[in-house]
């Protein structure tokens, strides 16, 4: 069972009445805490136990020019990201890079990494997307 705020208020009122003259804020707090101990634990909600990997997929594309891979890998290296796979294609003047990166050991959150990539994206005039691997797994693997 779980306690609503109203339940707690009611329990507190009972405690105060029972304690009568002795009721001090500290004592009431202690008594109430002891009474509800162990009852208020909510069962965690489970929405299926899909194991989520610590990997993200980085996709970059744009007009080809020297230094793109270098700037990407340099930033990822500095953030302690482990590049597990990398593939690249050039079609006419356009390049596309796809990387599978493990960020579980990184000193940066995905959000921060995305900010770093946004900066590179502006500097190099290319598009960079960084998305959690789960979305690809869900869409393309049953």
């Amino acid at each position, binding site marked *: 069972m779980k306690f609503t705020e109203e339940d707690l208020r009611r329990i507190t009122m009972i405690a105060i009445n029972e304690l009568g003259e002795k009721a001090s804020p500290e004592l009431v707090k202690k008594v109430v805490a002891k009474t509800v101990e162990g009852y208020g634990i909510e069962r*965690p*909600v489970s*929405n*299926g136990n*899909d194991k989520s990997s610590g990997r993200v*997929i980085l*996709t970059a594309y744009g007009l080809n020019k020297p230094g793109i891979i270098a700037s990407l890998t340099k930033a990822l290296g500095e953030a302690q990201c482990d590049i597990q*796979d990398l*593939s690249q*294609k050039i079609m006419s003047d356009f390049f*596309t890079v*796809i990387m*599978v990166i493990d960020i579980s050991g990184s000193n940066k959150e*995905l*959000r921060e990494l*995305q900010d770093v990539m946004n900066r590179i994206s502006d500097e190099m005039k290319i*598009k960079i*997307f*960084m*998305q*959690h*691997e*789960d*979305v*690809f797994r*869900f*869409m*393309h693997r049953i």
Partner: protein
Amino acid sequence: MPYEFDEILETIRMTEVEHFDIRTVTLGISLRDCSDRNVNTAKQRVYDKILKYGRNHVKYAKEIEARYGISIANKRVSITPVSIPFDGFGVDELIQIGETLDKAADEIGIDYIAGYSALVQKGMTVGEANLIKSIPYALANTKHLCSSVNIGSTKAGINMDAVNLMAEAIKLTAEATKERDSIGCAKLVVFANAVEDNPFVAGAFHGVSEPEVVLNVGISGPGVVLDAIREAGSVDLQQLSEVIKKTIFKITRAGELIGKKVADKHGVPYGIVDISLAPTPAEGDSIADILKAMGVEDVGAPGTTAALAMLNDPVKKAGLMASASVGGMSGAFIPVSEDMGMIRAVEAGNLSLEKLEAMTAVCSVGLDMIAIPGDTPASTIAGIIADEAAIGIINDKTTAVRVIPAYGKKVGEYVDYGGLLGKAPIMNVRNISSSNFVGRGGKIPAPMRSLTN
């Protein structure tokens, strides 16, 4: 590489180019424990409860959005039909509850809160009748509040007394919000066979059989389907159906993932995913364009209903396979004002109200976001609602009417709301009368289909 090059590019294309987005994550909150004889206490309870569960709704959704690179267009809240916990209140008090809901929505930063509703398919309590009377004022006094009333079901038939009351309520709402092109009517839906877990506003509410709190997801993506159909080229209809099915399967999977993750963040149960192709006023995000890509010259041409049926069906089939819990409407929406292609078809004189009505027999909702002349009599609106409800109860499907009798406007003029609600050309309504029929009142009995036991 664990994924094919093409698979990765396909996902990027869907999310970045083709406007695939999670249309809404809707947090359903039960208000059944908020009733109180004193309206001020009730208001406080409602406000506290919505803030308790909804406080971080927008923040959590944004975090998930960044993590998966899939945009979540809207964050919303649905609540227990207001007439249920507050059945004892009069019109004024109900309006105050509506205003409190609006304030709470404002506080947690969502655009719509839906569930100013009543379920009266079989009959009305005093409180429910009061709620219907209060709708025009509640909608006029608020910004975020959405209202819906269920007036018929396959099991109960059609409550014509409620239909007549709703027709009046629609007219009054149009007048009460005449300063803003009768916008109140865009937030008022009349349902038959309403679903309890629909995440899509304006018709969302948190059904009575739902848990304390639940997270439902609505996904969309007409743009993705449109491009897939265009890419498929001149294949036969069976193959075209397969193309649609495969595309929907993938976007439903993504929706399921996002829904679960947002629910996990909240620590609340994940409810359903509703995969409904819902257009937006953005170019390319149009159901009309899909129907045209399938081969009809314009929406309204003979064959349109068949094409729409063919679009609606694989959406359901793929959804069922892709998710453990499909719910809500799950199909195609055909609102006029929110779909540039539909607007053009109406302007060109190709699409009439009657054709739209026929189309609603095979798609997931009904006459949606249709502007009609402001002087349309309430009895005619009641007739329109009754027609739609009849389609719903006989075919055992949800149908809805969201019409806007634009106050003071005539055919040829427009209502324009901007944003997601878009703009609608005022459509012609036949001016032959239904008043002697709807005026009889009472109930249309439940159809044969109701006796399935």
